[in-house]
C-alpha cells in the first residue's frame, strides 16, 4: 500500500513538473511544439538523476498533492491538447466566473487552515479533518455548504473538485485519513492567491485577465 502511495506522490509531483513546463512554454509555442514539450517533460520526468527521478525531487518538496490539485493539473494539460469535441469542458475551464469561485474557495480554505495549523492559536483546524473526532462535523458542514452553493450557482468546476476529493478520501488514495489533505494543499492555495490578486489587479485597471 505504501508503495502505491509513493507512486501516487511521485506521479502527482511529475504532473506538476510537466504542467509547469507546458505552462511556461505554451504562450510562444504552437500546439505541435507544445506536444514535443509534453513528451520531453514526461520523458525527463522518468530519467533518474543521482538515483531519483525528477518527480521524486518535486515530491520531496511538495509531499502529497491534494486530489483537487491533481485534477486541476490533469485538466490543465487536457485543456492544452483537447480538440473541439470537448466544448462543454472548455466552456467551464475557460470561464472567469468558475475560476474566480475556485480560487476564492482555495484562498479561503488556506486562510482558515494554515495560520492556525502553524500554531497561531490553541485551536488546530487540521484536526477537523479527522472524521470521528470531536468537531469534525464542522469541516463536513463547510464542504457540504460549498457543494450546495456550487449546485445552486452552477459552479460545476469547483463541485467536481470537492466531490472527487471526498470520493478519493473514501478510497484512501492518499496515505492520510485527514480530509483536508485531499481537498487542499499549500501549492494550490498559493497559486489561487496569485490568480486572485491578478484578477483583482486586472479589474482595478479594467483589463480582461488572460487564462
Amino acid at each position, binding site marked *: 500500500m*505504501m508503495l502505491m502511495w509513493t507512486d501516487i506522490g511521485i506521479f502527482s509531483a511529475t504532473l506538476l513538473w510537466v504542467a509547469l513546463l507546458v505552462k511556461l512554454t505554451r504562450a510562444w509555442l504552437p500546439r505541435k511544439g507544445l506536444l514535443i514539450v509534453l513528451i520531453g517533460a514526461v520523458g525527463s520526468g522518468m530519467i533518474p538523476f543521482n538515483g531519483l527521478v525528477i518527480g521524486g525531487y518535486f515530491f520531496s518538496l511538495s509531499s502529497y498533492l491534494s486530489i483537487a490539485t491533481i485534477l486541476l493539473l490533469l485538466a490543465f494539460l487536457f485543456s492544452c491538447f483537447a480538440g473541439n469535441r470537448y466544448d462543454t469542458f472548455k466552456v467551464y475551464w475557460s470561464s472567469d466566473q468558475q475560476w474566480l469561485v475556485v480560487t476564492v474557495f482555495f484562498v479561503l480554505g488556506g486562510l482558515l487552515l494554515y495560520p492556525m495549523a*502553524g500554531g497561531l492559536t490553541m485551536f488546530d483546524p487540521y484536526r477537523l479533518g479527522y472524521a*470521528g473526532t470531536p468537531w469534525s462535523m464542522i469541516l463536513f458542514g463547510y464542504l457540504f455548504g460549498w457543494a450546495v452553493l456550487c449546485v445552486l450557482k452552477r459552479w460545476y468546476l469547483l463541485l467536481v473538485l470537492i*466531490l472527487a476529493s471526498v470520493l478519493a478520501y473514501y478510497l484512501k488514495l492518499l*496515505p492520510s*485519513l485527514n480530509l483536508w489533505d485531499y481537498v487542499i494543499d499549500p501549492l494550490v492555495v498559493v497559486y489561487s492567491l496569485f490568480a486572485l490578486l491578478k484578477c483583482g489587479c486586472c479589474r482595478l485597471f479594467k483589463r480582461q485577465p488572460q487564462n
Partner: protein
Amino acid sequence: MRLGLLLLMAIVFLPLLLKSLNHEPSPSFSLEGVAQLADISAEQPSIFYRVQFASSGATREVHSAVMVRLSSGNMRAFWYGGKREGAKDVSVYTAELDLLTNEWREERVLVERLDMAQQLGVYLRKIGNPVAFRDSEERVWLFFVTVSVGGWAGSTINFIISDDDGLSWSEPTRMVTSPILNLSTLVKGEPFLYTDGSIGLPVYHEMIGKFGELLHLSPTGVVLDKVRLMPGRVSLQPIVLPSDADSARIYMRNATDASDSTLFETWTDDAGQSWAPVVRSDLPNPNAAVTGLRLDDGGMLLVLNNQHDKRNNLSLMYSENEGETWQLLHEIEQEENTPEFEHQFSYPSFRQSIDGDFHVLYTWNKERIKHVRFNQQWLQERLEALK
C-alpha cells in the same frame, strides 16, 4: 439537472456525515510502560549501579539515544551518529545489550540516508531523532525524522517495524502529520500504548511556532487524531506518563532560553480527550529534552538537566505527589564547565528491563552514548533516604 446533482451530492456526502457523527470514545491508557517496584525485602539483592558506554566511538558525534525492551529480554538501543548533527553521513545506529552480562554487542548501521531516500522515493538531506517502542504484538517500532530541505523544522516522521527483535525491518513508511507540505513534525518522547492496541506518539512542531502535540495512531501507524497541547513558540518534546486508565501527565521542554525557564506541564483525567491548560512546573529546564518513568506506586521519576541554563548536570528526580514537589534522588552527572570546554549531558532515555533494573541512556558530550544501569535495591535505598 440540479435535482439530480443535489441527489448525487447527498449520496457522496452521506458516508462522510455518518463518519463525522460516529464519535468513538477515546481508548484508555495501557499501563504497560509503568515501571514495577519489586518487593525487595525478601531477596535483599546487592546494590547495583553501573556506568558504561553503549556506543563505541566509531563516529565523531552521536546523539539522541533511545532504548526498547526486546521479547528475548535483552534491550536494544538506537541513536544517530556521524561527523556532526545534520551532516550527510549521519546514520541511525543500533546495538543490543545482553541483560545477563551487561555487555553491549557491536553496533551497526540501521538507517542510512541514501538507502532510505531510495526506499522512500524522495531526496533526503539528513536524518535524526530515532524513537523506539514495543507494541502489544511484541513488534519493535522505530520512528525517526528525515529532512529534505532546510533545517530540523522541515522534518517529516517515518517509521520501520521489526517482528524479530530488530534483526530485520520493514520497508519505511512516511507518515502524513501536517497540512503544510507535511513538514515540521518531529519525535523525541517515547510512544505509549492504549488498551485497544492503538499508539500514542508525543511529537512537536518547530516551524515558526514551537509547540508540543500528541498523535493518536492506529495499530498500523496511520494518524487517527492530532491534539495540540499548547500554541505559541515555547514548548518542545513532550513526554507522557500515564498513571491509570484515564490519567496521565505530560512534561515538555521549555524552548524559550529564559534565565528562569522551567519544564511545562499538563495533565488529563479523561484518557486524553481533554488536557488541562499548560502550566510551568517547578523543575528547571535549560531548553533541553527530558525523560521519565511512572512507578506502579504512583510516583514519577524524571531524568533532566536540573538547572536553568547549561547541560553540565544530569539528575534523577522523584515525585510522590503528582509533581507537586520534586526531590533530587541522584546526580547522574555533574561537571564544571571551563572556558575551553562545556560539558553536555542531554537527550536522556529511561526504561525498565524485564529483570526490574532501570536503564538510562544519554548523550555524553555528543561524543558517546552513556548507559547507566541500576537495580531496585539501589533505587529503593535512595527513596528510603528521602523520607
